[in-house]
């Protein structure tokens, strides 16, 4: 059973628009939810993260929301830029394990 489900698989938005990526998870004991950003030819890198005691965290144009009751999280990118074009992974962690979604390939068109 897949522990973390991510959607959409791919997404194209226009420069200046808002990007919304969503994830759901299975295990209610997960308490840490990072988002990773991966550019072609590079490894994933931490973009933003949230703990289960919070429902929102902002970092510049990037905001992650967490809904414990529905076991869902989302990443919002406002004023999307062509430089944001990358693959984004959500993840969920508890104990010693971390589980990744399958990723969303984002293209921001100028």
């Amino acid at each position: 059973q897949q522990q973390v489900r991510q959607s959409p698989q791919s997404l194209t938005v226009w420069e200046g628009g808002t990007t919304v990526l969503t994830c759901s998870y299975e295990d209610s004991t997960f308490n840490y939810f990072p988002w990773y950003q991966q550019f072609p030819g590079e490894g994933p890198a931490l973009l933003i993260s949230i703990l289960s005691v919070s429902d929102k965290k902002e970092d510049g144009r990037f905001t992650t929301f967490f809904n414990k009751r529905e076991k869902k999280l989302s990443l919002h990118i406002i004023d999307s830029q062509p430089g944001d074009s990358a693959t984004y992974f959500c993840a969920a962690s508890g104990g010693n394990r971390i589980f990744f979604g399958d990723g969303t390939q984002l293209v921001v068109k100028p």
Partner: protein
Amino acid sequence: EAAVTQSPRNKVAVTGGKVTLSCNQTNNHNNMYWYRQDTGHGLRLIHYSYGAGSTEKGDIPDGYKASRPSQENFSLILELATPSQTSVYFCASGDSQNTLYFGAGTRLSVL
């Protein structure tokens, strides 16, 4: 600067040959991981380690071995490489919160 370094960055191997992928971290993290990334499959966990001398099977361990001789080094070994193991491999170290720090990847082609 703390980092995760993988070598080689690119590798071409022959079917049936032995391949060793190396990973070195200067983050002083106990946990280290090996993933493979294929189009349509995201990141799949092969092996991981909680510290020197320990290795654990991940979700897709078949055909792979791992070795953690020290805190800093974690190797992935393909004893008999097959074309199905053609992929991009990522090593990562993880802190106590399970934030992972990835290397730049190794692109492996098995012909």
